[in-house]
């Protein structure tokens, strides 16, 4: 169970970091964005989104700040830090290696 969770978490981290490369976003916007870009294939489990955000912040990869949302209501916006950018690069590389490897196995096996 732990390994699956880790894998899931790892992927989620990657996706969160990727969606934050542009402007700051709040949690709901992050999940919407992922859903939208993956054409509804990837649905973020919302129960694990917020723990993940808090963990990433605790690791110093993202920072949060309170701002005003499009509704005029206070919301917490997350933004990538410099070390988060480096982490994103690392995770993207790993992901590419991972999918590449899986792809090779599927093609050649």
């Amino acid at each position, binding site marked *: 169970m732990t390994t699956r969770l880790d894998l899931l978490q790892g992927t989620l981290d990657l996706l969160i970091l990727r969606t934050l490369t542009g402007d700051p976003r709040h949690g*709901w916007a992050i999940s919407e964005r992922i859903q939208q870009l993956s054409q509804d294939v990837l649905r973020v489990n*919302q129960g694990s989104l*917020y723990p993940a955000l808090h963990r990433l912040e*605790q690791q110093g990869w993202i920072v949060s700040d309170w701002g005003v949302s499009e509704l005029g209501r206070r919301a917490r916006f997350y933004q990538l830090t410099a070390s988060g950018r480096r982490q994103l690069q690392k995770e993207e590389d790993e992901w590419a290696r991972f999918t590449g490897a899986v792809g090779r196995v599927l093609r050649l096996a």
Partner: protein
Amino acid sequence: MNLHTVSLWLRALFRRDRMERQLAEELDFHLEMQARKHRAAGADADEARAEARREFGNVELVKEDSRDMRHVRALEEAAQDIRFGARLLRRSPTFAIVAIVAIGLAIGINAGFFTLIDAFVWRPVPVVRPERLVKVGLRFSNGGGSIVFAHPQVEAIVAHSTTLVDVMPEARCVPIALRPSPSGKTLVTAAGCVSGNYFAALGGDATVGRPLLPSDDRIGAPPVVVLSDGFWARVFSRAPDIVGRDVIVNGSHATVAGVIRREFVGVRPLVPDVWMTNATAVAVGATPGRLDDPSNRFFDMKARVREGVTREQAEAELSGLVAETPPPGADADAARITGIRLMPNDAMLKLDWTTSLALAPVVIVVALVLVIACANLANLMLSRALVRQREIGVRLAMGASRGRLVRQLLTEGLLIAFAGAVLGLVLSRWTVATVSRAFFASVPATFGTIALDLSPSWRVVAYTVGLAGIAVVLFGLAPALQVTSQSLTAALKGEDNMLGTRIRRSRFRDALIAAQVAGSLVLLVASGTLIASMRGFGANAAGLDAARVTTATLGLAAQGRVPPSLASARATFAARVNGLPQAAVTAQAMRPLFTSWWPFLSVAPAGGSPSFRQFAYNVVTPHYFDVVRQPLLSGRSFNAADSATGANLAIVTTSAAQTLWPGATAVDQQLRVLEGRDEPDRIYRVVGVASDAHSQAVWDADDAGHIYLAASARDLEMNDMVLLVRADAPQPAIMRAIEDVAQSVAADVPLRVEPALAARELTITPLRYGTWITTGVGAFGLGLALIGLYGVVSFTVAQRRRDLAVHVAMGASPRDVMRLVLARELKLIGVGLAVGLLLSTVEGQLIGAFFVPLASLGPGALVALSALLFSVAGVACAVPARSALGLPPMTVLRQE
């Protein structure tokens, strides 16, 4: 972790409410956005909200998980435990106070003792760069050693050593007679004799003027002195124009060069009033040493080992500088210098084998106290925890982990220990400060001012915290483990309390009780030993009556080289004091009363083949025995006519007489006294027998008796005779009168006047403090043990209420009930006493081996002490046990 994440973490910990609110707001926002999305897709408001919630899942769980990401859960749990523990302690304030005071006193005693050890052993000497400081010593061919050097060795080392730097020879100094101004009154002043580089090497700067310099340390250099800050304040009222003032030291003029800063102490914890260089000290006679005599060793030496040189290398080089080759035909046994040893001097005291051994008994006593206190608390905590066993059972059943419960139970102990440590630290600081102040005040001013830094160092604080930690393990862990190891069903059903089921009696707890009793007995015996010894040292126990005797010594201890001018001054002084109207009778003696400096004399009965025996002896003038009121049992005392004839006369004490002439009268016997190697033995005639008296220091085992020789004219001239004055006038008055005589006879010769009992007091004082401390500690330990027993028995009675009620219902008499309750405890007390007696015997042997003058408690006293302890402990058990007698059986049985 960087700064940012640390601040996040701290915020999570300390701004918990705010974090919580923000988290709630964040999630709420998410739900609203999601509901909005559903509404936009056509759902009505309620439906949309419900759908959003359903998708989201358990909000509280998400909150919990998000919080966990901050890694503060363990800390939050700890905070919970602390709150819970504090609440429990608040609910039983008596327990809390007893526990905290008990553990606080125990830790305080340990911390106080550790403060003293720390001050001597670990605290660096308060000088600059103490790390490479060494004390230089000599090695002899016979395996012995010494730390005093003669001038030629000092010269050789100072001039030629390449491995040492900052070589600081210090001449042994004696108090000086100092007149602050040529017309002022002479003060006996503590002097320090140091090398010219001393202050520069150790960082002794001057606040006014300059410190001593190497140029002051040349033979023939103008004599200068520097003052301690205290002396400058006391005698010169901090006069700003102190530099350049003329003071008279032992009759010679000297110039004040400066005042040393107050914080400067040097490598010894005694600060003299006045420092001068070794050269000045020799010139003004502040040291008994002589530079031109290669056999006169009077220099201590400190130095630093040069950077990059090991102590061994330095020793090898120095040994080459001072080693002596035996002159041809020399006595092979005569000790000669073979080398140098260097001892680290970075702290006041080197913790070597002998020091550790001397400290060991005290360490054991104070550690015992902590163990007893912990044993006690363990008992109390166990009782408290057992009372909660039902609650703990429920918690275990509801899935609480054992680790968490143990942690919670330990937290209570931790709180007690922490509060105790704080209390202990405060107590020890106060006690050490008070006791040391009183103790330092009893040190004569001519020794200098004691400057020992006794403020708690980080080591003391760390030690105290460490003790608290150990205490928690000792008194908290075992009960916590024991209570949580209970079987679940039994605990829930309260089976331990049920009729017929055995109350588990833990061996652990039994051992604790026995240990407490044993520990208390050991402490009681130790303080009993000390008290008995102190009684032996009482003022009247010496066999003399010295209460009204004043001693006066004019001039330095010159060791057989009294200059004629001083000898005649002394003669005039003695005659003038004898003529004082207040003086009832005076005498002179070679050695002062109550000191360890009495030499030995090898004597044998004259005639027949001599078998020599050694006796401590003194040389006295005619009225000595009248002055000290030592009764003569037979024969007569010395008289003035004897002095005129110059006959060799002796008086022996009863013990000496019995040893020398068993069964015969000693008066008029001939006594053969063994003289030096080349001189013929001398024959003395015994004219009287005096009663035995403890005339030497309390440490000395002088039961063997003494021999007194009549002082000859030569003795009076050549020896440092002490003047003993018996007067009926109040002692301060007679002391002032004697000082006035000295001032008029020889104003520039140092005079020492003090009550004869002062020397005795000085040797007893440390022991008196030791007695107070041990007795206090012992009483505290006993109190703890009694509280512990009381607690355990009341707990047992409470636990066995039903059991006992059944017995009463079935017709048990009060006696039977008492036996039921107390049998086991009394047996344990017995075991504890046996162990304690055994340990006390070992302790007695150890003390006897190291400290001869301590009385040893006889077997009778040991038995009496044990009996006393047994009855006191019995009462402590019986009081709570009596409550079992009053149990109305039916009420108790109906309770469940």
